[in-house]
């Protein structure tokens, strides 16, 4: 039996607020493999973003563990895990507004220590792949449209060359055609480059494009038939 790329084991996350305690996830377990694209779906408030935060190392579980190649990411260090193995595309607050698109991408490459590539050239390649026009690449990100910003954020995540890509509603602010293009990029990333792509989405189109769809309901993660 091979060790999965990412294994969630009995993950529970409880939030405390004053005297109230609210358990969002209850004993969630699942193993994610390389070269596959996963969709996590579920109604609002079901804990999708919490699950994404725990799996991507942005947060720590109340109980249970997240293992990367069999090693607990808490031992590895959440910062190190995020820096070297996992990248996340968020719903909002995606870009550094005082930088242009190219600077956002190259800056992320510098932080994550991507070596052996010419960073600016790679940034232009990725932005080109995601349909950002050359003239828009040197504009401050606040001057870009919501869809363009989202695509720059995806380019930045791709530039980090990590093993797992997390995306929280990545096509939420994109038109149908651009969204389809993005999904295609994700699929290629999983199938051609052997990465693991985990997408939290409400979109049926996105879910249908994934290899596996996982339903999060009442704190439990269940594969959808």
């Amino acid at each position: 039996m091979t060790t999965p790329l990412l294994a969630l084991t009995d993950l529970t996350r409880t939030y405390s607020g004053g005297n109230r305690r609210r358990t969002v996830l209850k004993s969630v377990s699942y193993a994610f493999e390389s070269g596959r694209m996963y969709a996590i779906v579920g109604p609002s408030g079901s804990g999708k973003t919490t699950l994404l935060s725990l799996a991507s190392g942005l947060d720590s579980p109340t109980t249970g563990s997240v293992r990367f190649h069999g090693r607990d990411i808490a031992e590895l260090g959440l910062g190190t895990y995020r820096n070297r193995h996992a990248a996340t595309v968020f719903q909002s607050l995606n870009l550094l507004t005082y930088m242009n698109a190219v600077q956002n991408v190259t800056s992320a490459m510098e932080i994550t220590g991507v070596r052996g590539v010419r960073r600016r050239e790679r940034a232009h390649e990725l932005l080109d792949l995601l349909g950002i026009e050359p003239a828009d690449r040197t504009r401050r990100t606040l001057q870009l449209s919501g869809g363009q910003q989202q695509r720059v954020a995806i380019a930045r995540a791709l530039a980090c060359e990590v093993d797992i890509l997390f995306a929280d509603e990545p096509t939420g602010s994109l038109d149908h055609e651009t969204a389809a293009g993005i999904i295609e990029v994700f699929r290629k990333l999983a199938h051609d480059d052997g990465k693991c792509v985990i997408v939290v989405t409400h979109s049926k189109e996105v879910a249908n494009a994934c290899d596996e769809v996982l339903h999060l309901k009442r704190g439990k993660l269940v594969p959808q038939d």
Partner: protein
Amino acid sequence: MNLFKRAWWRLTGHPGKTLMLVGLFFVICTLVLSGFLIRSAAARAADGAKKSVGAVATMQLDVNALINSGKNNGTGPEGQRGGTIGSHGDLRRSLVNRICASSVVRRCNYTTDSGAFPTGSTKLYQPVPAPRGQDSRGTDLFKVDGIRDLKAVAAFRNGDATLVAGHGIGPHSKRDEIVIEERLAKRNGLKVGDTAKLKVGELPAPGQQADDREHAFKVVGIYRSGTADTGSYVPAMVDPANQIYATPDGASTLLGKGAGADGVLKQATFTLDDPKDLDRLKKDAEAAGADLEIFPLSINDKQYQTLVGPITKTADFATVTVWLVAVAGTVILALIVASNLRERRGELGILLSLGEKKPKLLGQHLVEVVACAVLAIGLAGVCSQFLSQAVGDRLLASEVSTANQAAANEAGRRDPSDPTGMAKKDQLEAKPIDAMDVRLGSADIAKVGITGLGIAALATCIPGARVLRLNPRDILTKGD
């Protein structure tokens, strides 16, 4: 390097905020640097004043101490009876000369106050006679000052009196040498080298006969007093034309006392470079054999204080300003940085999600603030010299005006540290320093640089502690 690049992008990406931070730092650094410049200008002025005026230490008999010591009825070293308080109360010239040799004494002088009655050949200068019926017997005499060095007399030092013929009295002058005023010389037809005859200036005790012996003195110098005739009657002994300078022995002779190599002085003054040298002077005086219980040495640094008082107050104000501005600046900047951090939570969250280390996030903030501080320090260096000169001059002018007013109110009051007024007389008339020489030096820039960067570091690190507690999930996700 990444954090430096990000800091640069951030600073150039938000020019308005950058300018605001530079502006705030500029104000802080300019005020702090101005304070430093005023303080160093004041310190320089105080040093200069110390060198120019020094401080005058006075040595004279403390009668109460002598009585308490029980030495008041003893006999002198020569076995002579010393009068009612005994010879232990005599301040000997030989002792004072030994103290004058101390390395901390810049100038020394001693005085014997005396008087002399006129004779048939040497008459008083009285341009306006006494009103009819006024008894002027008690004041119709010359005022004689027995001195060690005419050049050390305040009137000659400050130019009120000048020698117009012959030479003055010096440490090696003979007992019978005198210097007289030009008008008195003219009145009596005296020239340098002539002999003037004077009588003892003490009125006889009741029942005793007056000492009518005439003592011959050689006129060795003639001086011109800066005080002109008033045109109305003044008692002879207070008329400046009747002021005669003699040696301490000569003055003793005119007091009816015998003169000798070790004459008795009334008081001695020692001008020191620095009031702090008094302790050293006391040690040297004790080593020379002085009994400092009976002949205490007291300092009179009033002239120095008059000179430096206003500029010192200005420097004190500048010091308070430096501290206030530094503390207030740190607080204001810390609040601004804290507010910036709050505003930049999203940015911090994104960088944390990329795996950026928290100290590096703090480092980026520090680099941004320090860059603004460095720019502001440079600008402050250019501007603060002018500002501190202008502000310093205004503050100093106000302090000088206050000091002058206080001095005018105090004029005429007796100084308890100088009961005979001799120390005061021996000093030049002091006017407060009323100009400030502000000079910007590399040390001042270094000081403000350290202060400015310290403020930057504190203002960044205190609120920056929050960055270290940040959790990227709290920033970037809604936590549904």
